[in-house]
């Protein structure tokens, strides 16, 4: 499959057309979507219109943009005007937002062609897409296994060759973990780098939209398009977006890499081996390394499972049957709210709403939510101390390669543990990238994770590019 950058070049030069690229993408979707269940909705009409606009721009000699004619998959928790947005929940089934997320506007302005909406764990709560109300997505590399989650549909779209690019959202690892399980690049940008306007909120202080791609340059190109201040999002960073693509080839000479014990402990041997070999590759390219321990990271999972559900319990209150989405009628409005939410939400969403409501309740707030906030502050401080010693951190993305369906659904805690290495970055509001490096059981991909401080994306892409080359993808 050609890279997104190559496709855009060909479309801009007239060697290809956006309509032809779209047709190619739709062909793969038609061939594999029924089996893999990647897309919840394919927007053929809207995509064709977008592609035709790109071709018209090219024909009239205009600048069709850095992603001219590149088909892209959108996680179905981002609003696109007139296109069904479900968050893989029955409670939003059939809802068509009257407005578009800022990222959708930016993609269209850059010439990208949104093909449709991809599957996810309901409201982005999960690590396997098994929590989708509409059934799971299969891992294109081994259909007996999960693609990871919650952005499993978007990761699978890229891994299956349906679209060269996709966007997902990462609240505790929901981009990096599926990227790792599907053998592609996944980026969790610095909090505030990409506007959240139009991203259906799960945990507002943690959610961040980011790219999936098959290679580092494509990922950097896509993030450059997505990033930038948005006056519609008060938490959007005020600074101008960093240039990324021009730094992809910067290398790692002189960079200090910290290998963090807490970001590898408990991982399978094959994952540990990948991290070790990745470190060797970075040193080979001129980086220095040091082993580090950041004990605070061990508290991340517990803090996350108080903070994220607390925010979710509030964010998901609006699905009450009054204004949009599902309504289950009952005798009075309170009974209607209850019946609607009982029927509309799946088990995991209900579990987290309950957990979050409890954590914020009078008499429990200080012991749970308040304590979690303190841990979060400690984690931010601990990362800051580490980044005084090193430029980047290295660890695993997830403890194992893609797991089988049903393997972790019996006990929610085992599922939560698959995000143990990714969660700290969200709590700290910092940046991280998952890069495929080597393979494990059954030839399945292993992802290693590079972490950096806020706005260190350029440095992360440069290091990821070194690993990409070392892993045999020049």
């Amino acid at each position: 499959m050609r890279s997104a950058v190559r496709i855009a070049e060909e479309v801009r030069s007239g060697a290809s057309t956006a309509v032809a690229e779209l047709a190619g993408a739709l062909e793969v979707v038609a061939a594999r979507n029924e089996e893999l269940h990647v897309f919840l909705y394919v927007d053929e009409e809207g995509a064709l219109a977008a592609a035709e606009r790109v071709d018209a721009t090219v024909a009239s000699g205009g600048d069709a943009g850095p992603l001219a004619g590149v088909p892209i998959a959108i996680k179905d928790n981002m609003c696109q005007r007139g296109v069904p947005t479900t968050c893989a929940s029955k409670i939003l089934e059939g809802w068509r937002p009257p407005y578009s997320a800022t990222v959708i506007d930016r993609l269209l302005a850059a010439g990208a062609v949104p093909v449709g909406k991809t599957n996810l764990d309901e409201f982005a709560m999960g690590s396997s897409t098994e929590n989708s109300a509409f059934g799971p997505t299969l891992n294109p590399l081994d259909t007996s296994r999960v693609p990871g989650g919650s952005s499993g549909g978007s990761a699978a779209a890229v891994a299956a060759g349906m679209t060269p690019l996709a966007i997902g959202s990462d609240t505790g690892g929901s981009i990096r973990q599926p990227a790792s399980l599907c053998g592609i690049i996944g980026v969790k940008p610095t909090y505030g780098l990409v506007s959240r306007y139009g991203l259906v909120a799960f945990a507002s202080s943690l959610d961040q939209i980011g790219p999936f791609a098959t290679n580092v340059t494509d990922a950097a190109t896509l993030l450059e398009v997505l990033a930038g201040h948005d006056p519609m999002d008060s938490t959007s960073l005020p600074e101008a977006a960093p240039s990324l693509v021009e730094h992809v080839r910067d290398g790692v000479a002189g960079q200090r890499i910290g290998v963090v014990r807490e970001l590898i402990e408990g991982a399978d041997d094959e994952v540990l081996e990948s991290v070790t070999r990745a470190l060797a590759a970075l040193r080979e390219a001129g980086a220095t390394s040091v082993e580090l321990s950041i004990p605070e990271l061990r508290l991340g999972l517990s803090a996350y499972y108080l903070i994220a559900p607390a925010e979710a319990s509030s964010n998901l209150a609006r699905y009450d049957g009054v204004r949009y989405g599902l309504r289950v009628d009952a005798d009075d409005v309170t009974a209607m709210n209850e019946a609607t939410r009982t029927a509309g939400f799946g088990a995991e969403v209900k579990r987290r709403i309950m957990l979050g409501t409890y954590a914020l309740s009078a008499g429990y707030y200080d012991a749970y939510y308040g304590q979690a906030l303190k841990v979060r502050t400690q984690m931010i401080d601990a990362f800051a101390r580490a980044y005084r010693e090193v430029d980047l951190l290295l660890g695993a993305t997830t403890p194992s390669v893609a797991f089988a369906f049903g393997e972790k659904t019996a006990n929610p805690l085992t599922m939560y543990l698959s995000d143990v290495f990714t969660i700290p970055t969200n709590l700290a509001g910092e940046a991280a990238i998952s890069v495929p490096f080597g393979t494990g059981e059954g030839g399945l991909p292993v992802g290693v994770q590079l972490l950096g401080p806020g706005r260190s994306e350029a440095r992360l892409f440069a290091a990821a590019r070194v690993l990409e080359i070392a892993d045999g993808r020049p």
Partner: protein
Amino acid sequence: MTLEHGYEMVVGLEVHTELRTRSKMFCGCANAFGAEPNTNICPVCLGLPGSLPVLNVRAVELAMAIGVALHCVIAPSTFHRKNYFYPDMPKDYQISQYDLPINTGGYLDLPDASRVSIERAHLEEDTGKSTHLGGSGRLQGADRSLVDYNRSGVPLVEIVSGPDIRSSAQARAYAQELRGILIATGASDGRMEEGSMRIDANVSVRQANAPLGTRCEIKNLNSLRSLHRAIDYEAQRQVEMLERGEVVRQETRHWDENLGETSTMRTKEEAEDYRYFREPDLVDLAPDQAWQDRVRAALGAMPAERRRLLRERLQDPTDAQLDAVEVVIDLALEGLVNAAVDRGADVTLAIARAANEVAAGIEHVTNLTPGAFTETVLMEQRGDLSATQAKTVLGELLAGGGDPGVIAAARGFERLSSDSLEATVATLIEQFPDEWGRYRDGDDKLAQFFIGQVMKATNGQANGKSVVLALQARR
């Protein structure tokens, strides 16, 4: 004020005021009263999935202006979510301020020289408006509920007083003075009938100097009259309970204006747990000193200062004149009064015409220019217009503007010539010999009788003072 059996009431008020911004608190929708339902709405104020709030800078400025006017400290503040389910609240949480409000620790001095402390004045968003059809008219048991989200996201400031108020009259004076301040700051139009100012009252009673009693919060006080009546009712209810040996329970009570009584809405045990937490979609609010200074500098005179200045123009004012001053301040009519006085009008006359005739037509006050008001008062003062004629001219000016001289001429309001006044008086003396005799013998009250008769004979063209002079000349 002492209640029966030696009790005193302790009252604190929470006043919610809608801010007069052009757009809503977190989106660009118009902040306007009376539009067609659900026309001033967008994804943000409808709380659609994925939408995010962006704070309206003007709302912050008006909140600061209120803080400055109430002598508060403007502090770095944060926003919180107050979580509860209600159909007219589209996100099922309200964005409000909790432990760190924008304004803290101020006070308000009342015209009677008492001082009421202000604990805080914080920013929050308004909800939509529900109309319940069928059943009791409340949400539960209604056949149908209609929701208008035009009001959803309108900026509010909630002003919380300390428990310093000791009578319903003082509560009313506080609300009135606060209303004047809100209008003077430009923060609010003060229209209680449109719900732009809503009051909750915390009422308790105690024996003088005893520790504070258990309080009840009374909701739904939408006029000064309701406020006054509800506080008196509630204090009396609590006194009677205590006298019967019962215990006052902390609860929220609803004021029924028609029945004239309060009733339980929910007890403390039934109170909602709002699960407040920091609003993650907004950043902290910390207005810098320069911004605060700009707000402070832009602020005009507050009612207390304006009242002082106007009172200074009166020498030994009567109670009626002080009441008239209050009306002038309340309706912000001192611009008219000052314009007239500066051009030589009698201050008592100018205040009286403003507080009576202009106040009666206040909804059309924009038709009345200071120049036209001044001219009318001066014409009356010179005797070119009688009092009755001056009132008529003011009425016409308020109804449709214009020039007082032209209006007077069109109505035939010409000054009665002294010859014709003399002739009228002479005729009346002949017509009423008994009354004249009593007047001549020193009964001054009879002057009023003759003034009335002259007015009748001249269609109100005569000037009262001239009549008295003519009568005295013949005594």
